[in-house]
C-alpha cells in the first residue's frame, strides 16, 4: 500500500506544510534580527539585515503561499517585537505581497530559472519600495520624508537577491 495516496498521507502533507511555513516565519524573523552584513559604505554603519533571504528562499523553494506567509508573518513579527509596532500592519501587507509575487513569478513564468528568479526579485523590490513609500506617506503625513527609506530598502532586496539567486537551485534539491 502506498502511503502517498492515503488519508494519513494527505494529513502528513498538510502538517508538513504548516511546519515548514512556521519555520520560515521564524527564519525570516531571526535573519531580520540577527543576521546582518556590514557594508563598508554609508555613514550609519551600513548594517543590512538579511530578512529578505529566507523570504525569497521560501518563495522559490516552496512557492507563493510559503513566500507570502514567511514574509508577512515573519517581518511583521519583527516589527512587533522590536518597537516598530505601528509599521507591522503595513509590513504584513507589503512583505506578504513581496513573498507572494516572487513565488508566483517563480512558479508560473517559464524560462531559465536564474532569469525568472531575477525577475521575481525585481518585482518584489518594486513592491517593497512603492509599498513602504505610501505606508510612510500615511505615517509621516508628507510626500518627501518617505524617500529617505528608499535606498535602504533597495539595498536590502538587492543584496538578498545576490545571495539567494545562486543558492535557490541547490536548496531546492536539498529540500527534496
Amino acid at each position, binding site marked *: 500500500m502506498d502511503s502517498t495516496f492515503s488519508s*494519513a498521507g494527505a*494529513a*502528513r502533507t*498538510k*502538517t*508538513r506544510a*504548516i*511546519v*515548514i*511555513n*512556521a*519555520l*520560515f*516565519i*521564524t*527564519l525570516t*524573523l*531571526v535573519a531580520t*534580527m*540577527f*543576521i546582518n*552584513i*556590514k*557594508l*563598508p*559604505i554609508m555613514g550609519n554603519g551600513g548594517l543590512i539585515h*538579511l530578512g529578505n*533571504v*529566507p523570504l525569497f*528562499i521560501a518563495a522559490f523553494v516552496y512557492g507563493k503561499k510559503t513566500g507570502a*506567509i514567511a514574509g508577512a*508573518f*515573519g517581518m511583521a*513579527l519583527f516589527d*512587533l*517585537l*522590536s*518597537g*516598530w*509596532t*505601528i509599521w*507591522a500592519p503595513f509590513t504584513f501587507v507589503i512583505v506578504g505581497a513581496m513573498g507572494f509575487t516572487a513565488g508566483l513569478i517563480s512558479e508560473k513564468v517559464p524560462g531559465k530559472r536564474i532569469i525568472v528568479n531575477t525577475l521575481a526579485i525585481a518585482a518584489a523590490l518594486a513592491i517593497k519600495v512603492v509599498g513602504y513609500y505610501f505606508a510612510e506617506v500615511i*505615517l*509621516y*503625513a*508628507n510626500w*518627501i*520624508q518617505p524617500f529617505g527609506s528608499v535606498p535602504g530598502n533597495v539595498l536590502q532586496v538587492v*543584496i538578498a537577491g*545576490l*545571495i539567494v539567486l545562486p*543558492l535557490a537551485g*541547490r*536548496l531546492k534539491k*536539498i*529540500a*527534496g
Partner: protein
Amino acid sequence: HRLDPRAKLLFIFGFVIVVFLANNALSYGLLAVFTLVFIYLSKINVRFLLAGLKPVIWLIAFTFLLHIFLTREGDLLFEAGFLKVYEGGVRQGAFISLRFLLLIFVTSLLTLTTSPISITDGLESLLKPFKKLKLPVHELALMMSISLRFIPTLMDETDKIMKAQMARGADFSSGPIKERVKAVVPLLIPLFVSAFKRAEELAVAMEARGYKGGEGRTKYRLLHWQGRDTAALIILVVLAALLWWTRS
C-alpha cells in the same frame, strides 16, 4: 492590563483608526489625555515605554522639522535666508509628531502587556468567522505558535553555526562587499538544511501525537471575555464620538 487579548486587539485597532480623526488642538489634546490615562492604567513601567521610543525618536524629530519647513500656512513666524517658518507649519508639525508618538505609545502598550502567544490566540478567536470564507485560521494560528516556539532555538543554532564556521576561518566582518555577501553562505545553507530536517521531524512527531488538522480539536487555552473588556470597547466608542464632535 488584564484585559482579554481580543479586547486589546480590537481596542488598539480601533484606537489607531480613531487617532487619524483628530485634526485640531482640542481633539489632539483629548487623545493625548486618553493615552496618558491608558498608560497609567496599564501600570507599565514608563521607562520601558520610553526605551521603546529610542529607535524612532529621530524619525519623529525629523518629521516635525520637515513639516515646519514645508507647510506654508498662517502667519510667518520668522525668516532666515530661504527658510520660512509659518505658524501653520509649527502646528502641523506638532500635530503629526504627536499623532506619531501616540500611535507608537499605544501600539507598544499592546506588545508590552501581551505576549505574542496571547496575541495569536486572540487573533485566532477574532478571525474565526472568516473560516467560512476558507481562511485557514486554525492553521495560521498553529503556524504562529510553532514559529514563536522556535525563535530561541533557531537563534541558538544561528550562533552555533556562525561560531563553527568562524573556527574554520570564516570572516563575517571584513573584506569587500562581494566577499561579505559570499561569507554568509556557509551560515545560511546549514541553517536552512537544519530547518528542513526539523520540519520533517516535527511533522512526524505531531502526527504521532494525533495531529490531523483543525477538525474536532479542542483548545487548552481559553479566553475569558469579561465586563471590563466590554467596558474598554465602550470607552473607545465614546472617545471616537468625542473626537468626531470636537474635530473641525
